[in-house]
Structure formats: C-alpha cells, structure tokens
C-alpha cells in the first residue's frame, strides 16, 4: 500500500490536503484583510501625525474586529431600481478569482497549493476576471455614479493590465518558465531578479497599484467625486466583501507576485536548513510591499482619469515593449551574461524617473507660452 506524507493513506491525504489548503487560504484572506486595514489606518495616521485607532484594545488592535462585527450587523440596503440578480452576484465574481489566485502562490519549498506549469499565466487570467465583476456591479446598481465608476474602472483596469502582463513577460524571458516554484528557485543567490530587471518591477508596481484600485489610481471609487463609484449602492457586509476582503486580498496577491518574481520568494538565509523558515521570509517580503502600498497611498494625490490613461498608453506600454525587445535581443547577444540587460533596465528606470518629468515640464512650459501668446 502506498503511503503518503505523515504516513497517511494517499486516498485520505489528497482530500485532506485540499481541505486544509482551502481553510488556510480563507483564514489568510480574512486575517490579512483585518490586519491590513489596521496597518493602513495606523500608518496613515503616523504619516499624517495623528494617533489613529486607539480606543478598542491595546493600540487599537481590536478596532478592525469591531469594524468587522459592525459591518456584519449593518442593514444590507438594496435600492429598488437595482437589478437584483446581478447586484447580488457581483461581489462573488470579484471574490472567487482572488481566492483562487492563492492556489499557485509558493509560500515555502513544497508549501504551495498546486504548482501549475502555467502558474503566472493562470494568475494573469484570474486578474482579468475581476474587471467583469466591477463592470457588473456598476451596471446592476442602476445609478449614474456607479455606472460611470464602473466604466472608468473597467477602462482603468483593462488598460493597466497590458503593462502589467508585459512586465511579467520580461521576467519569463529571463527565467524561461511560468511555474511560480521554478521562478523562485531560479533566484537562489543574492542576485534576485530585481537587480536585473528593475524596470519590469517598477512597471509592474505601478500597474499593480492601478489593478488593485489603490491611490493614486483609486478613480473607480473616487469617494470625493463619484461617491465611491461602483460601490455607491452597496452597504453592509456586501460592501465589506467588495472592499475589505477583495481589495486587501488582491493587494496580498500582487505583493506575493512581486515577491516571487523579483525578490526571490521564500529564498533567504537559512531556508535550505529549515524549509519552514521560507514562510517567514515570504511573509516579511510581502508585507514590505504592502507597507510600500500604504506609504504611496498616504503620499500621493489621486490622478485625473485622462492623465491616468495617457500615462498607461503613451508612457508605460511603449516603454514596456521596448524593455521586452531590448531584453530579448541582449539575452541572445550575450548568452549567460545578465549585465547588459541590467544596465538597459536601470537606464529605463532612470528615464522614467528623471527624463519623463523633465519632458513633461518642458511640454507644460511651451503650452503655457502658447496660451499666453494667444491670449495677448
């Protein structure tokens, strides 16, 4: 008789493992959301020189639990004009793909739901499904704010999906595999992909901010102009599913992707001796990015929709395409040598950070000049 791990019969182990994976994922999503909401409020408070939540529990730690209970016990109002079936379905459509994304995330060696051959493609695929839920939410609300929010959101999400995927393709070019485990294993040394492909990372980071509807790209919600956009008609736990669970879950997913692709995933000192240490490294790295997301939110103002689209289609996508082609050419021209790619990538980052604002400043100056002349 074959014996599976822990001496359990494989016929029992397979379903048991699945059950554990599902339970662990849902636990992670719930707790991640609670923790991140707390962190978000606390960090914003610190940056803005406030105290943040401090009433409930020590350091306000129980504040989010109180919020969760409040959300659960709030009345779930559904306006009469809404389309019932779609209105109820939309949160599920955005939530399910997010949960399913966790299947391929490698938390530690041999600690992964399923190591799919096409792991990265699978993640992109699930990312593209969230758009549908948001459009449907906006449409089903039968509210002008919601509909415009939904349309904007769809425009933003689908536009930023392109540079996001192009950045991923650049990493796949260098690594040569779509499996998340293989990608992690390829960065065993201290030279993680970030040092070689920083531009792909920066592009992905920006696109990820947009994909998760975080400031400065939180136009779909835009609470001050569109009264929360597609969320206007949602209330109670349905709103909580949408915003709290899904948004923070998606933040976890994109931060895990960044960790795995550019920062070596679970790799770190001592993992070879003690594989369980991988979980610690992975979580630490993921939370560094989560904190970066929050820092960005506290620092930057919201962009205007036309600036947002211009930036995506006229800057990010052309540069990402150049990056892919340059990487491909240099990979073939200098086999086994990643230095040229690294130089080109850092040059692109420099161009994005320094040359672009300078260009924009010059354009603005000539524009002002012209308007002044035409006014005179």
């Amino acid at each position, binding site marked *: 008789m074959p014996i599976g791990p822990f001496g359990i019969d494989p*016929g029992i182990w397979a379903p048991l493992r699945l059950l554990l994976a599902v339970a662990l994922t849902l636990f992670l999503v719930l707790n991640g959301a609670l923790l991140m909401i707390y962190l978000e409020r606390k960090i914003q408070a610190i940056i803005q020189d406030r105290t943040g939540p401090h009433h409930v529990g020590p350091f306000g730690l129980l504040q989010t639990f109180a919020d969760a209970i409040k959300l659960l016990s709030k009345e779930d109002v559904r306006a009469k004009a809404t389309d019932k079936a*779609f209105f109820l379905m939309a949160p599920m459509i955005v939530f399910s793909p997010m949960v399913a994304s966790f299947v391929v995330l490698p938390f530690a060696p041999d600690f992964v739901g399923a190591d799919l051959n*096409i792991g990265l493609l699978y993640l*992109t695929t699930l990312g*593209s499904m969230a758009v549908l839920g948001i459009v449907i939410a906006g449409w089903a609300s039968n509210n002008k704010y919601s509909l415009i929010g939904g349309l904007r959101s769809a425009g933003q999400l689908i536009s930023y*999906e392109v540079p996001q995927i192009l950045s991923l393709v650049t990493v796949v070019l260098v690594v040569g595999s779509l499996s998340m485990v293989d990608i992690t294993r390829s960065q065993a040394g201290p030279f993680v992909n970030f040092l070689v492909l920083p531009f792909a990372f920066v592009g992905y980071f920006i696109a990820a901010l947009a994909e998760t509807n975080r400031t400065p790209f939180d136009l779909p919600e835009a609470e001050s102009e569109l009264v929360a956009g597609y969320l206007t008609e949602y209330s109670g736990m349905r709103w909580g599913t949408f915003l709290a669970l899904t948004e923070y879950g998606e933040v976890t997913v994109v931060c895990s992707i960044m960790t795995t692709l550019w920062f070596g995933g679970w790799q770190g000192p001592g993992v070879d001796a003690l594989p369980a240490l991988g979980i610690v490294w992975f979580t630490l790295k993921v939370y560094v990015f989560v904190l970066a997301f929050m820092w960005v939110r506290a620092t930057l103002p919201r962009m205007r929709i036309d600036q947002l689209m211009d930036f995506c289609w006229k800057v990010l996508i052309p540069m990402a395409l150049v990056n892919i082609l340059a990487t491909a050419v240099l990979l073939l021209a200098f086999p086994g040598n990643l230095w040229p790619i690294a130089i080109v990538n850092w040059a692109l980052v420099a161009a994005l950070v320094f040359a672009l604002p300078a260009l924009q400043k010059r354009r603005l100056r000539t524009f002002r000049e012209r308007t002044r002349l035409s006014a005179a």
Partner: protein
Amino acid sequence: MTFDFLEMVLFAILAIAIVGAGAAVVLVGRITSAALFMAFTFLCMAGMFLLLGAETIAAFQVLIYVGAITVLILYGVMFTPQGSRDYGLFFQKQTPWAIVFVAFLAVPVMVFASSFQDGRPLARGGDLVPLATSLFGDFAYPFEVASVLLLAALVGAIVLVKRDDEEIR
C-alpha cells in the same frame, strides 16, 4: 480509479452547464443576462479544455473570452439603447422554420459526433511547449498574418467609432 470517476462527474457538470448556459444566451430576453450567460459558457468551456489536458488553451480562453471579449460586449451593451423594439433580418422572419431546420441538422450531426473513438491519447499536462513549438515553427507565417488582422481590426474599428465622434462635436 477515483480520479476517473471525478473526471466523469466534472464532465457531466460542465456539459450540462455549457448546453444550459448556451441555450440561455439564445432564450433570455435581456442582453446583459445573455452576455453573462455567455461568459459563464466560456468559463465552463475552459473547464472542458482542462479536462482535455490543454491548460494553456484554457488559460487563453479565460483571458481572451471572459476577460476581454465579454467586457467588450458589455461595453457594447451599455452603449446601445435598452429595450427598443427589435427588427428581423431577412432570414429571421421564419423563426419556427429556423428551429426545425437547425433541429433537422442537429440530430444526425450529434449522433455522428458521439461516434468518434479515441486515437492515441496524449500525455496530460504541459501543452505550452509543444504549442509554442508549432506556433513559432510551422505556423510562423499565419502568426504574422494574425498581427496584420489585428491591426486591420484596430484601424477599422477606430475609424468607425471616431468618425461618429467628430460628427457629433
């Protein structure tokens, strides 16, 4: 084998879902509902591809059909007026006849279709590499033509949509 049984159950679920949702697309009155049923059919179809072991095709199916084409169609639905009266194309005036015609064709074809026997089954998993080998080897020319087709579609659609914008302004 337990996995065989699981596979059969999954196939039955998916087959019923595909046929049911497909029929719903045709029968449901509201366009938005039809679009969603269509998305559901596509999703189940991706499940079918997975049962056949074509994981890459399944991922592409969801990426293109659910993620892109359904969104495009939902946009189309939103930009067209709701609930205005329907006209028929010339061949749509005889709905009952069309049904009879389709059913007449469908029955023998279905019988014929289910008579296919398996040839040599391929190994499961990992269809990405053979797919890419064929695509960039033997099919290099169609691959380039595909980009020309996309370019033509892009230019054509922009011309159609943008011309109207300028007229309105």
